[in-house]
């Protein structure tokens, strides 16, 4: 019971004066598959997000993501992998050093899906471990601009070749610019 009370006190202190915030990010996305295959994807990523926390402390953030897909890595029939739709949950810690900007670090997990066109599969799911860093640049008490970088280690659902299930992994780098509104 003591532990629970202490945990609740800790959480409440972490999120003291917390606010809900909404935001959107737009960025550049580059994906390189691990050394089993030579494949890469370079495109744009767009996300909308909702978070709860303090601008200069901890926050929890849920982001829905759209990634335009300009590469074809899995599809064999129509030569077009579909766009990616994903969701990421991150825990974010920002630091207020009194220098106007607020750097932050974040960790989280993500998952998503995309359509593909193969004989045995028409959809592929993926999941990722995320880490990131960036800056909040306050405009006023409500709005701030966000500059950030995310790294994701992504694992795709296996490709069924009958003889074996081939699983691909990739490294994803995303640099983005965003804007947040805090309420």
């Amino acid at each position: 019971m003591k532990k629970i009370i202490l945990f609740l006190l800790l959480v409440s202190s972490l999120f003291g004066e917390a606010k809900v915030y909404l935001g959107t990010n737009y960025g550049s996305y580059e994906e390189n598959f691990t050394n089993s295959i030579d494949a890469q994807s370079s495109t744009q990523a767009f996300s909308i997000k909702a978070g709860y926390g303090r601008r200069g402390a901890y926050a929890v953030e849920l982001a829905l993501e759209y990634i335009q897909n300009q590469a074809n890595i899995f599809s064999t029939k129509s030569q077009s992998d579909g766009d990616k739709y994903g969701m990421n949950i991150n825990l974010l810690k920002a630091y207020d050093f009194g220098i106007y900007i607020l750097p932050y670090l974040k960790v989280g997990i993500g998952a998503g899906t995309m359509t593909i066109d193969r004989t045995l599969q028409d959809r592929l799911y993926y999941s990722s471990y995320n880490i990131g860093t960036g800056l909040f640049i306050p405009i006023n008490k409500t709005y701030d601009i966000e500059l950030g970088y995310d790294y994701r280690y992504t694992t795709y659902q296996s490709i069924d070749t009958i003889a074996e299930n081939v699983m691909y992994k990739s490294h994803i780098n995303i640099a983005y610019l965003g804007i947040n509104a805090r309420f």
Partner: protein
Amino acid sequence: MIFTKILLLLSVTLIFISCGENTTEAVTSDINKLTIDPSDNNYQVHSTSKLELQATITYDDGTYADATHSVSWKLDSDDYNTANLLSNSVYPIANSGSVSVSAIYRNLADFNSSVDVSIIPLTNFYIVPIDSNTTGEHILKAKGNFDDGVNDKEIIYNIVWSSSQEDDDIYIENNVVTIDLDGTGDRTITASIFSGEDDESNQTITYSIK
């Protein structure tokens, strides 16, 4: 000022990342067809042996891979009195006939391959005589002559060994007969082929050792 610098830095980063290339060809070739190899549909098995089948998946780029253990193997329901199928192995239980065996993946009609396996009948068989100068334990074997001209082929399946003197100098375990030649007295072993069949394929011979 610092804001401008950060924006400039991020813009350069975005441009740098955006310069990457996009792969346009699938990295994993798609499946094309499933076959049972060899694909000449000329499968035969001697009635006292087994036949192991192999499934191969061919890809769009011409490469292929062994899919024997990825597919489901099925025996036509009319053929259960002629052979048994255990995974990819056909075990005849009759001395003649043919069976249809299919390899199928996830019940997909496009990935279903079938072959007919014919059984080569055994015409006669014999128990391999034991050298009278041999001592110690000896495993008794039977060999057969088949309809396709193959002679003296060891009989592995569809043979049942028996002896009224078991546990004396004769041990039968897992259908393998071991005789202790250091024993004395007359010993008699009987071998029956296709003992469950009610036709001429059911043959029995007796072998005696003095």
